[in-house]
Each structure stands twice: as structure tokens, then as C-alpha cells.
């Protein structure tokens, strides 16, 4: 299969996808009821989309194309309201969070579609272990070359999004010590990590052809990169975020990305290079493991600083762009979360106060459903 043409889309437009947990209101373990929820939501009134994910305890929602923070927040609130109402009708809960705290991977059931069965056959138990929940943010680009330039320029900011969104400290009933343990599940996939350093769409087409000729990949969907181009949408897709515990945080993260993209496009503060990736996996690990308290190394200056400080500095640089994009509220929410800590810390705080993990998931459910 040849690489699709890169569809032109309006620059800096946004689309947010959230993978959500469906939990039982009895024991707050995952509930395989995606089909039921999709059936009840079949006639929802929003422009947003809701669809199945790989296992039957997950759903994915996607917003329509948005330009500003206010529109994105309004739509996310609308979908949260309709989703919550449908879930209550079915006696299930919906929660954010990158992992479910104590689900057992082998209990999960693959959602009955051709692609999910193919993935299950190909990856075996990894597919069920992929019962993790992420936020994907699409940013519109006018052409493929711009998309690839932006994709590589954004690599320096990937740790920001990991640390800010981190909400997966617990896996299979234990505290992993990671703020985002979800990304460890993604690493297990052979085509995960960073995209190859290719900066033009033509060169990317050659790379794609080579990969398809090896039979390793069939489509862009087989790449599980942290940021990947989505030619049919005309976007790049940031995939490193855990699903936050509430929709306001999800909107704020998307708009923080939008402001950084505008800053990069308009000011071109640096040119991305292959050397940016020398520190990429180290920075990524620090963000996953220690969250906002992790360290980040600048690939150019080789300076090391706290990730929290690096985000504060970046927020100051992009504030002007956030103002123009009318997303200062989003920036302020990000600033607040630097003070109060990320969602992983919130979840750990509940556990530390003596609550059982089922109660922690219950609290997360109440927070998401409102």
C-alpha cells in the first residue's frame, strides 16, 4: 500500500482523542461493556465521535475540528455529559487515567472487529496488555513537509506532555514508582518510540515504501510512534499523553500543544536535527518515571534542569501565542497543575490516605463523570 497524499488542513486546528476506561460500579474493575455504551450513544447529538478500542472495556472519543480553547472545552463538556448519562443508564462508570489500577490483563476481551482481531493475533498477549488509555492530540498542518518539520521540532517538548498528563502510577494492583507506567506498555511494541528523522514528505514516502516492502507494516496505523503524521487528516498526532482525570486538563494540554506549535512555526527558535534524539529517550524516561520532578537535558546546550522549571520557562515563551490563540485559561490551568502536581500524584495521595485501590478508581470515576 502506497503512502496516502497529505491532505491540506487549516494550520493549528485541533482535534482531541481520549481513550477512556469503562468500569463496573460494583467493584470498579474494568467492565467489558463498550458495545452497550456505543449502542446507547448511537444517536448522540454532538459533532464528536465515539468508537470502540482494542478491548471491550475501552472506548475512544474524538472531538470535531476545533480552533480555540473555549470551543474545545464546550465540546468536551458536552460529550462528557452525554457519555456520563449513557453510562449511568447502563450502571457503568467512566474514568480517565492512563492505566486501570488493578485490572488483570488476561481478563480482557478483544473488541470484535477485524482489525482488533488482527492485532490480537499479531501481538498476542501484548494486545491485551495494551489495555492502557491515552490522549491523542491532532494539530492541523498545511502540507506534509511542515508536518514533518513540526513533528521533529516538537520532540524536545514530548517530556512536558508526558509529565503533565501522567496519570498511570498503578498497574496490576501495585504502585510502579512511575508517574506514567502506561508508556512502558507502549514501548513493548516493535514500532514504538520516535519517528525516523526524515524531514520531507517525499523522503517519508520512500521510507514508508521500504517498510511496507519488508512486510513489517501495512499502513500508518502500524507505527506506534510518540508523534506520527496522519496524512488522511492532514495533521500530526501527539500520542504520549495519558488520558487525564478530567476533560478540562485534556483541553488545556491540547491548547498548550497548540501554543507551542504556533511558537515553533512563527519564531523558528531552532532547527530540528537528528542530534535532538541523543537525549530523547533519557528525557522521556525521566518524565515517565519522575513526572514533573524529573530532569530534562537540552540537546543543544547540554544543560540539565528540572522538568517543572523547563515547563515554566516554556509557558512564559509561548504566552504571547496563547493570548493570540485565546487559550490563556489553558496555560493557567497548566501552571496550576505545576503547583498542585499531576494526576499521578493525586491518585497516589488518595492511596496514601489509606483508601483501597477500588476506592481510588471510584474517585477517579466521580472526577471524570462530574
Amino acid at each position, binding site marked *: 500500500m502506497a503512502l496516502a497524499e497529505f491532505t491540506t488542513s487549516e494550520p493549528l486546528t485541533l482535534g482531541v482523542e481520549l481513550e477512556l476506561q469503562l468500569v463496573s*460500579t460494583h467493584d470498579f474493575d474494568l467492565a*467489558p*461493556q463498550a458495545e452497550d455504551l456505543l449502542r*446507547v450513544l448511537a444517536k448522540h447529538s454532538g459533532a464528536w465521535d465515539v468508537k470502540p478500542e482494542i478491548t471491550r472495556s475501552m472506548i475512544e472519543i474524538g472531538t470535531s475540528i476545533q480552533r480555540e480553547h473555549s470551543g474545545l472545552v464546550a465540546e468536551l463538556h458536552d460529550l462528557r455529559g452525554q457519555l456520563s448519562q449513557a453510562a449511568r443508564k*447502563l*450502571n457503568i462508570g467512566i474514568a480517565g487515567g492512563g492505566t486501570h489500577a488493578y485490572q488483570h490483563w488476561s481478563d*480482557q476481551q478483544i473488541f470484535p472487529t477485524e482489525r482488533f482481531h488482527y492485532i490480537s493475533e499479531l501481538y498476542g498477549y501484548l494486545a491485551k496488555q495494551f489495555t492502557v488509555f491515552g490522549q491523542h492530540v491532532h494539530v492541523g498542518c498545511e502540507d506534509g513537509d511542515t508536518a514533518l518539520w513540526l513533528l521533529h521540532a516538537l520532540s524536545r517538548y514530548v517530556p512536558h506532555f508526558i509529565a503533565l498528563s501522567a496519570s498511570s502510577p498503578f498497574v496490576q494492583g501495585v504502585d510502579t514508582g512511575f508517574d506514567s507506567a502506561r508508556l512502558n506498555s507502549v514501548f513493548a511494541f516493535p514500532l514504538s518510540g520516535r519517528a525516523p528523522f526524515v524531514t520531507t514528505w517525499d523522503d517519508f514516502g520512500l521510507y514508508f515504501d521500504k517498510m511496507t516492502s519488508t512486510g513489517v507494516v501495512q499502513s500508518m496505523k502500524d507505527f506506534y510512534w510518540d508523534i506520527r503524521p496522519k496524512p488522511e487528516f492532514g495533521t500530526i498526532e501527539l500520542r504520549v499523553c495519558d488520558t487525564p482525570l478530567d476533560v478540562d486538563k485534556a483541553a488545556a494540554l491540547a491548547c498548550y500543544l497548540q501554543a507551542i506549535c504556533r511558537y515553533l512555526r512563527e519564531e523558528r527558535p531552532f532547527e530540528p536535527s537528528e542530534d535532538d534524539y541523543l537525549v530523547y529517550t533519557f528525557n522521556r524516561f525521566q518524565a515517565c518515571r519522575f513526572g514533573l520532578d524529573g530532569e530534562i537535558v537540552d540537546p543543544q546546550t547540554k544543560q540539565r534542569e528540572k522538568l517543572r522549571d523547563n515547563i515554566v520557562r516554556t509557558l512564559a515563551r509561548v504566552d504571547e501565542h496563547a493570548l493570540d490563540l485565546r487559550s490563556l485559561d489553558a496555560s493557567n490551568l497548566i501552571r496550576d497543575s505545576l503547583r498542585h502536581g499531576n494526576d499521578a500524584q493525586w491518585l497516589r495521595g488518595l492511596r496514601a490516605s489509606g483508601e483501597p485501590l477500588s*476506592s481510588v478508581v*471510584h474517585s477517579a470515576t466521580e472526577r471524570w463523570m462530574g
Partner: protein
Amino acid sequence: MSLSSTFENWFAPSAATASWTLDRLRGIDPVLGFAIVMVVAVVLGEILRRRFRLPRLCGHMLTGALASPLALRLLERTDLDPVKPLIDLAIGVLVFELGSRIRPRWLIDNPWLALTCVLEGVLSGLAVYVGLLAFDAPSISAALAGAVAMSTSPVIVLALVHQMRPRGQVTERLLMMSAINSVLAVVALKAWGVLAASGGVGVEPVGLEPAITSALLVVSGSFLLGVAAGWVLTQLTKQVRGLTTAPVLQIALVIIAAMLAAQWRLSPLLALLVAGMVARSRMAHGLTVEPQLGTAGATLSVLLFICLGMLFTLDGFTTLWPWVLVIVVARLVGKGIAIAVLTRPSGLGWRQAGALTIALQPMSSLAVLLTADTFGWPSQLPGANGGVLQALLISTTLLQFIGPLLAERAVRDLAQECAPVPKTKAP
């Protein structure tokens, strides 16, 4: 006969009694007999499970039926009366667990579901009543059959859930509906009792008012008792705070609540359901209800199903089969129609609606069993026609045995709510 003399007789090498005869087995102490039957039940349950994929409780009930006067007559039904408190406890434990398992708020969140729950109980009762009348059954007895036919056995449902560990809409609704239709059956039976008593044998009742008052008293009294029991359990659990002692406390509270309910002529079933709900809502994640309240509860549960098997009866089936057929079919139709009508508004799929209708079929006499003094409860019912009563018991027998099988298939194969068994390859 004492236990020691039983053993002496059992092992004494006597030429006259060396052979293993049924008469010899019949002569042993009922307690020893029960223990042997329990061993057979557990083994048979496992064999049926592995060979024929039947629910274990079918094996337990089958063992009871084989030991009963229906087949080998190893134990008499009157042998059950001394163990009735244990059986009541087994039922109570399961009902309390069911109460803690369901979330009443769901009925407010989904009023169509609440309507389905009431409608399926009422329609199945009405269908049985009208059906029996059409086949010339006496009105008062037909009403009794209708009242009993409303309920789905909560203990069979819960035992299946323990065994299969299903997760999904059908399972959740099955639990909720079995709780509600059992309560409806309790209320209907109470009302029926008053009506029948006021009308006398074979005479039409004189007025609805005393029946309604009596039913209301039972419901409100049982509700208050359940709330009190749940509240007391919450307070005491705060003092105890230990996973090992929590089930002991729960069992003790179940016994107290059930006995008080029986003594005050209330419904132990409703009281324990409410106690479970209140305890769950007040303690939330602090309440840990072990399935069947632990190993002791599991043992009681095996004993319970053996006893239910021992109560199986098919006497008079050859003459009563039209009424039996009416009860079974009308009940199925009543429940099916109610669920089908409200399938879409309540958020269910058609396949699931079919599965739920089938899964609701296990019928039981538990609604009355808990309040009766002995297992011979049918004889205590005033004015009931013997033929209709026997037809009701035969229907219960059939649906108690076949029902779990159907329910298991419906939940597993039709609704697909059980995690698939992982494929393993030999090394």
C-alpha cells in the same frame, strides 16, 4: 441412632448385613447421611462440570434428588427440618450478598429499567394466573401460583455468578431483577395469604384493603429492619476492623436479622436485601463481602442445593402436565414480553434481551421458604388447591434444575459475558 452406633453397624462384619444395600444406607444417622451426600454432591458437581459443562449446582441438586424419596429414598424430606436453620442461613448469606452487590441508584438513573423490573414480575405472575384460569384452575390457587412464579431464584443466580464470574449488562440486570421480582413475590404472597384467609377455602376473597395493608406492613417493617441491620453492621465493623472477623460479624448479623424478621412475621428476604444495600451504601469500599461469606458460606451453599434437590417432586406429572406447561410457558412469555417491550428504551440489545429472558427462568420457592417453619410449607397455605400446588412444585422442580443450565448458556454463549478461556498449547 447415635453417630458411634452408626459407625459400629456400618463396619461390623456381619454376614447378614455385609452387603451394601439401599436399606442399610437408609438406616444410617441422617447427619452421617448428609455428610456422605455432600461428598457425593461435590464430586458429582465437578464431574458434571468437566464432562458435560453443567453448572456445579446442578450436580448438587441432582445428588439431593437422587437421595430423596423421588429416587433412592436414602433421606426423607422430614430429615431436612432439623437443618432448616442452616439452610435459612445459607439463603440469608446469599441474599445479603445480593443486596450488597446491587446499586439501587441504577433504578433512578434508568427509570425504564425500573419499569422493566416491575413489569416482568407482574406480567409473569399475571400470565401464569390467567393461563391457569383458562385451564380451569381455581382462582385462589391460580393466584398463588402466579405470585410464586413472579420470582427468579436469587440464590441460583448468585451461585451461577460466583461460578462463571460474568461481567456485563445481562448479569447486572439479572441480579437486579432477581432481587426485585423476589421482593414482589414476597409482597404478592403476603397479600395472597390475607386474601385467602379472609375468603376461606374455595371462596372468593371479600376485600383488598386488609391484603394491601398487610403487604405494606411487611414491606415497611422489613425495610426498617434491614436499614437497622445494615446500620448496626456498619457501626460494629468500625469497631472490629479486620478482614478475618468481618465475615463472622456479617454472618451473625444475617442470622439475627433473619430470625427477627421471621419472628415478627416480616420478610427475611427483603430485610436482608435492604441490610446488604444499606451496608454497601454506608461503608462503600470498607465493606468486603466475600463470595458466599467465605468457605463456611460455600459449604452451606452446597448443603442448600442438596436440600433444594431433595425437595424435587414429579408426583402426578402425568395428570398435571397441562398446568405445569401453562406455568412454565406463561412465565416465560410474561417475562419475555416485558423485557422485549422495554428493551430499547432501557438500553439493551435484542440478543441481550433474549439472554436475559432465558437467564430469568430459574424459579424457586424461596420467597416463601424463608418465612415457613418447615420445608412442608405448601401444607401450611390455606385454601390452596392440591393439584395446582403440586403443579407449581413440579414447575419449580423443572425450572430449578433446567433453569441454571439455560441461564448459564444464555449468559455465556448468547450474551457472551464470560471471559474466554485462554488457549494454551502443550509444550
